[in-house]
């Protein structure tokens, strides 16, 4: 398996193992796009799925994506954000699970904020929608949310139609936030996606990002229910596809 090769020359195509979220963050900063925390990566079925997909040049679908079970909501205004999150929390029946509810709410909030305010750009490269104002998207900019629940955790997916995410954004965010003295990001009054990306990364058990530059970006997450699983297994995978 590629994961076990030493001195891997092509970081993007290699699966790496790690022992903690901070170490995973450090590997992302180095350029690794596929990282699994399994203590036995050869027997890790998710790592095997990625390995096989990379061989075929495809983006894999993981079992935790609950494709057949997931519900879909589409939103076009940031004013709908809180109501949408509340609707999803109720649909997922998380009201009696405060810890999981808190994590899901936090991740959804940051994913939607990124999609509304940081995904869409003007031709001059500036962000199209100001953070301090309501964002009313155009019909071609609709944000698609998928969500589902299964014993063990919650699946979430948020997709924008901009495709402006770059792996470099995430690398910069993690580099700043895993450095204990990270004042430049936290003190910025102008805002930015950095801290939000870090929170998404920290709160999710499995995170898959599929970016099609100029077309869409999709964040897919599995958030484990800590009440059902004390497992410390997590993964990160970032795929970039070509616009068709």
């Amino acid at each position, binding site marked *: 398996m590629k994961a076990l090769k030493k001195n891997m020359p092509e970081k993007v195509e290699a699966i790496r193992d790690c022992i903690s979220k901070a170490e995973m963050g450090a590997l992302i900063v180095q350029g690794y796009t596929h990282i699994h925390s399994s203590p036995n990566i050869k027997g890790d079925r998710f790592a095997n799925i990625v390995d096989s997909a990379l061989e075929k040049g495809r983006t894999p679908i993981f079992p935790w994506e609950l494709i057949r079970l997931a519900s879909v909501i589409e939103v076009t205004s940031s004013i709908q954000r809180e109501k949408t999150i509340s609707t999803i929390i109720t649909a997922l029946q998380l009201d009696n699970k405060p810890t999981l509810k808190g994590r899901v709410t936090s991740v959804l909030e940051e994913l939607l904020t990124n999609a509304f305010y940081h995904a869409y750009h003007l031709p001059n490269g500036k962000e199209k929608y100001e953070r301090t104002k309501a964002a009313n998207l155009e019909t071609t900019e609709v944000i698609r949310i998928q969500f589902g629940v299964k014993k063990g955790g919650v699946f979430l997916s948020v997709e924008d139609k901009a495709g402006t995410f770059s792996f470099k954004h995430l690398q910069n965010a993690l580099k700043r936030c895993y450095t204990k003295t990270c004042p430049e990001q936290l003190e910025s*009054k102008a805002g930015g996606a950095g801290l939000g990306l870090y929170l998404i990364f920290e709160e999710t058990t499995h995170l898959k990002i599929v970016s099609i530059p100029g077309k869409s970006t999709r964040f897919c997450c599995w958030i484990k229910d800590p009440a059902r699983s004390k497992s410390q297994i997590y993964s990160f995978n970032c795929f970039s596809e070509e616009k068709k």
Partner: protein
Amino acid sequence: MNLPNEKLKIEITPSEAGKKAVLRGVIDEDSNLTELLQNTNSLIVNFKEITAINSCGIRSWVNLLKELKEVKVIYEECPPLIVRQMNMVPSFMGHAQAISVYTPYVCSECEAEKLVITPDSLFSQGKITVPESMPCEKCQKGVMEIDGQTKQYFAFSK
């Protein structure tokens, strides 16, 4: 249209050593935290009724703490969502001291969840003596255990 700014309520009252602020609602980009810039030696912040905080709220809070660098800031009754920020973003804790947090427990039998107020005598300076489990009052069959990893939950107290 500017977004409304009514999601966070702050109630400030005198306390023994200074002032106490009880926060209710959501800390986000619309939160006006300037009320907390009090002329006092000590400020107790009660987070019990905070229901959500996002990255913009965290950033505002970190900036507030910087302004309060000469003030003794004490966090009390921190719910899990605040404890998570204390662990994930060290600057959110800054020079503040947490004197009590809510510890989440979950029943292995009926999955009931319960938040138990935990004083700092049980987690100060990284020495954690918080009970790992307790009988479930709801189903009276199962055992309630800490929801997640104890060491990770109290990592802020290092």
